């Protein structure tokens, strides 16, 4: 990890993302290997490490017995933050995640997006050196996701270092400076999103609707392709040419050309079989 970067952990369900986060946050013990968080060993100095971490868990675990303000205030008390400072910080953070109007509202009354924002604010009460986000935008509508993204970019601009897991590949592509794709507890690849796409797929993808004719035609032309459900995918550096050839010679029903994305890398590396 470099200071000031957003680092992503991607992988299918059961890949080991959350387990990794739990080991970093000193919750789960590791069975083997070594781990250093902020230069310390999570099994030796959990309290010292956690004092400097901010954690956004996958599950919403706000305290329903408190208001929004209370959630931030009493959480800061767990970090030994003095009362007046904790109060000031709680109000600042409510403003940061745009929940000032909900200051004295019980957390059950909040929408899903508001709850996630409040959890993000809660993770910041101790001015963490490292922010750990496990699926920060899970189950949110596009508006709420964009707001969270904006806040995360603000935090990065302020010099925060962020580690996140996500299932949303567009989210990873937008936010992460570097990321790893993992499966079955192993890291498959590591790099910047754009580099990974270049290295493992290519620049562009042509998608054609499957038919016996098209398959025969592509085989004849000697173009390598891959069948994915009812579409055929061709990864290429010259999508326009391929598309033109296809249209002229194979008479396909539907042809789409698009730039390759992280999702293509992800599916290529982890397969299309459903997990769990």
């Amino acid at each position, binding site marked *: 990890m470099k200071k000031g970067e957003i680092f992503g952990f991607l992988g299918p369900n059961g890949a080991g993302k959350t387990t990794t986060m739990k080991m970093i946050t000193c919750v789960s013990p590791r069975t083997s290997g070594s781990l250093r968080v902020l230069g310390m060993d999570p099994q030796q100095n959990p309290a010292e490490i956690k004092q400097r971490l901010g954690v956004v868990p996958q599950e919403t675990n706000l305290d329903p017995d408190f208001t929004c303000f209370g959630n931030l205030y009493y*959480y800061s008390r767990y970090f030994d933050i003095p009362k007046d400072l904790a109060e000031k910080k709680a109000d600042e953070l409510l403003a940061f995640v745009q929940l000032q109007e909900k200051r004295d509202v019980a957390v059950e009354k909040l929408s899903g997006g508001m709850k996630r924002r409040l959890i993000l604010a809660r993770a910041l009460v101790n001015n963490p050196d490292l922010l750990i986000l496990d699926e920060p935008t899970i189950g949110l509508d596009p508006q709420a996701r964009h707001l969270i993204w904006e806040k995360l970019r603000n935090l990065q601009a302020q010099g925060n270092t962020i580690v996140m897991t996500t299932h949303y590949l567009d989210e990873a592509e937008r936010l992460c400076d570097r990321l790893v794709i993992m499966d079955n507890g192993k890291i498959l690849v590591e790099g910047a999103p754009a580099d990974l796409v270049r290295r493992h797929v290519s620049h562009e993808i042509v998608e054609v609707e499957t038919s016996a004719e098209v398959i025969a035609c592509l085989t004849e032309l000697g173009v390598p392709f891959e069948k994915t459900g009812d579409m055929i995918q061709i990864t290429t550096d010259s999508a326009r040419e391929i598309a033109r050839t296809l249209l002229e010679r194979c008479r396909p029903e539907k042809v789409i050309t698009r730039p390759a994305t992280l999702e293509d890398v992800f599916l290529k590396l982890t397969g299309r079989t459903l997990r769990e």
Partner: protein
Amino acid sequence: MPHLLSFPRITRRAGKVWYRNMVVFVRTWQVNFFPPLVEALLYLFAIGLGIGSYIKEIDGIPYVNFIAPAILAIAVMNSAFFECTYGSYVRMYYQKSFDAMIATPLSIEDVIAGELLWGATRSVIYVIIMLPVLAAFGVVSLPIALLTIPFAFLGGLMFAGIAMCFTSISPGIDTLNYPSFLFITPMALFSGTFFPLTLMPVFLQYIAFALLPLTHLVAIMRMFTLPSLSWMILVHLAWIAIITAVFCLLSINLMRRRLIV
């Protein structure tokens, strides 16, 4: 993996969990302060005055005075036990509060220790509320009866520890009904509470003395409220101290086993 009676690393941060529960308790004081008041009055009227008008006295003690310490002991038992079973289970499983807390410098050992201390504190609060009611009816003898207040902490801690052990092994919140109905309710009746132990067959007396924590709690409470202090208090205190230590340690280790995976 540390074994089940190993001594956990608990720090003063446990106090922060205690404080969190205290804040919530005080903020909802109307619902929390009323039940012990009503409970004391109900027992006094229904059993003390109702049944008491037939029984008059037991071993030369007015019947209402005989059951007054039992009312306190049962309150100590119930408040700590239910706090650390249903209350803790809700915070652990439904509210995920423990998960949120252990993302801060608090360890799971701190969290459980805080919950146990809070359960015991709740017992103390209940006795503080009930004692003036009993005193007003003249059924406890002040000032020695004031000793029931600090003692409620020890008694509460014992039941908090026992309760937390059940919480740590309970597959769901419904299965907590078993210890409540098969352990707590019979104990409230057969621990020398509303009639002396000596009325039961001898072997049952032995069982009550050896296995029922409430027996010892009631005995000490009765020594404080009548008052009728005797050297036997040392036996009861030792029994309670040992059981408290064993179950508190056990519960913290069991909870770590349940929550840290």
